[in-house]
């Protein structure tokens, strides 16, 4: 008589040593395994934010890592933890991933100590993206508040890569203080080379600030909006996108043509830990990009 229940070693199953492919989701089993990266460059932007350039070490994994504007990844810092971060680089840049990170707590603090050459890992990409194809041949308004510019860079790069396919592109960007303004070094390039109509504003000016001051909605007076032909992408703190979207709504842009990116606590990126639920929707799987209509319909979204 044999009554020993035979063990099944799932380590021997083929998926157990496959390179995880986060796109080809159904066969994905290495759910906790990341792609190892080297931090190739660190660009200090402000006191609170740095731009990290990462390169995936393994060529196969590098080939697998393709994303769409608006998606995010889980950044693993061994020994410290894992955080969701929006991908802030161009979708056509297959060699490097850029992340713009604010020092906010446990994991992000230690990233600020990390040096060039450090090894971290990324899982992803995860989540929904901005429907860039849908916006083609139309006007696009990008509105960013504070760190909200980080997830906006990917769609902006996309537009720049396909500039001829988009009509007027306005970019409105506001921060609390001038010192918090990110990527100022790229402004000229965006304006002059990419023909982006850039408007900036700060809530509180300093003596050497000679731009506009006030709330970001003030910038709308400077642009003409053709509600029939315009899409909007809005990123920033909830209060800000609420005001902005309400304004655009009044201008006549339908809610399903405005897109926002939500932020919630996250531990997996895969719809398992349930920390990022908004009502009964996963920010990590169904989001982070939602059209404003969905957001209005999500309980407890704003």
């Amino acid at each position, binding site marked *: 008589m044999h009554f020993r229940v035979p063990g099944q070693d799932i380590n021997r199953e083929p998926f157990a040593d496959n390179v995880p492919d986060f796109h080809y989701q159904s066969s994905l089993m290495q759910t906790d395994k990341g792609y190892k990266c080297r931090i190739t460059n660190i660009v200090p932007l402000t006191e609170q934010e740095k731009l990290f350039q990462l390169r995936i070490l393994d060529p196969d994994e590098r080939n697998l890592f393709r994303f769409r504007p608006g998606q995010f990844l889980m950044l693993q810092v061994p*020994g410290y933890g894992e955080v969701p971060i929006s991908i802030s680089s161009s979708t056509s840049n297959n060699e490097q991933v850029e992340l713009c990170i604010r020092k906010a707590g446990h994991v992000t603090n230690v990233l600020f*100590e990390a040096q060039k050459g450090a090894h971290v890992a990324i899982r992803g990409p995860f989540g929904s993206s901005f429907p860039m194809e849908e916006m083609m041949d139309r006007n696009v308004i990008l509105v960013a508040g504070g760190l909200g510019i980080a997830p906006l860079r990917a769609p902006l790069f996309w537009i720049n890569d396909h500039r001829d396919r988009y009509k007027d592109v306005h970019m409105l960007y506001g921060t609390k203080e001038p010192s918090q303004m990110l990527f100022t070094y790229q402004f000229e390039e965006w304006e002059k080379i990419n023909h982006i109509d850039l408007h900036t504003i700060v809530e509180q000016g300093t003596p050497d600030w000679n731009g506009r001051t006030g709330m970001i909605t003030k910038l709308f007076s400077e642009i003409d909006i053709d509600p029939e032909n315009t899409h909007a992408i809005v990123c920033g703190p909830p209060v800000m996108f609420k005001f902005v979207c309400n304004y655009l709504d009044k201008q006549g842009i339908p809610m399903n043509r405005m897109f926002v990116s939500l932020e919630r606590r996250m531990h997996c990126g895969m719809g398992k830990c349930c920390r990022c639920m908004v009502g009964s929707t996963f920010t990590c799987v169904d989001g982070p990009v939602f059209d404003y209509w969905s957001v209005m319909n999500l309980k407890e979204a704003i």
Partner: protein
Amino acid sequence: MQHLGFSHKKIKIGSFDFTCCEGCQLQLANHESTLPAFLDLLDIRNFREISSEKHDDYDIALVEGSITREDEIERLKTIRKNAKVLIAYGTCACFGGVNSLKNNFPIEETVREVYGNNSVDTLPVRRIGDVVKVDYSIPGCPVSKEEVERIIISVATGSMINLPKYPVCVECKQQLNTCLFDLGEICLGPITRAGCNAVCTTGKTVCLGCRGPADDINFESFLQLVADRQLSLDELDEKLGFYNCFEEFRHDKS
């Protein structure tokens, strides 16, 4: 943390005790399997219980015990001056601990009762935080070595971790214990900060709240549940007062 491009330094540490049972310091010598590795993280500059060497240059001062005598105040202030980070560890240091029970009686009576006509120097019990600024607190009577280990490591690796915000019931349930309320007892688990792995309730004795209140506890509802079960409110009060951790709530009530 070589892989992130920086390396950790040995932590210069001092451990100091005031009025207490020294049980928390003793915990540092427990967990024998990881003890050599743990000691290797540290540069022990001052630790009377285990070493004869004494120096005053330490980054972290671990302070155990509560303050009950004039000379302790001076000693504590000096420690604060020398230390970059001061960690109060143990319930006595964080909340006063069982020592505070003596505050229930007038000082003169207490001294007379125990020492007769001999005079002794003693003050009403104070927490470390009442006398100097405390950077971090690790509560527990005694502290759990795993938690101390984790916090020391997090200091060494440059990332301060937080204590759990949830109450003991979470860990108690994870140990598959029978809830002591079902056995007719009053347990402080629902309002006490977790992190001890529910040792007391796992040993089938009630939690007396040595780790202090969890974040955002529902004290009203807790009182209600004790009353609903017709359990003794006097007993509840004795338990709440045992480690002096629920002072603010007890006062709110009366």
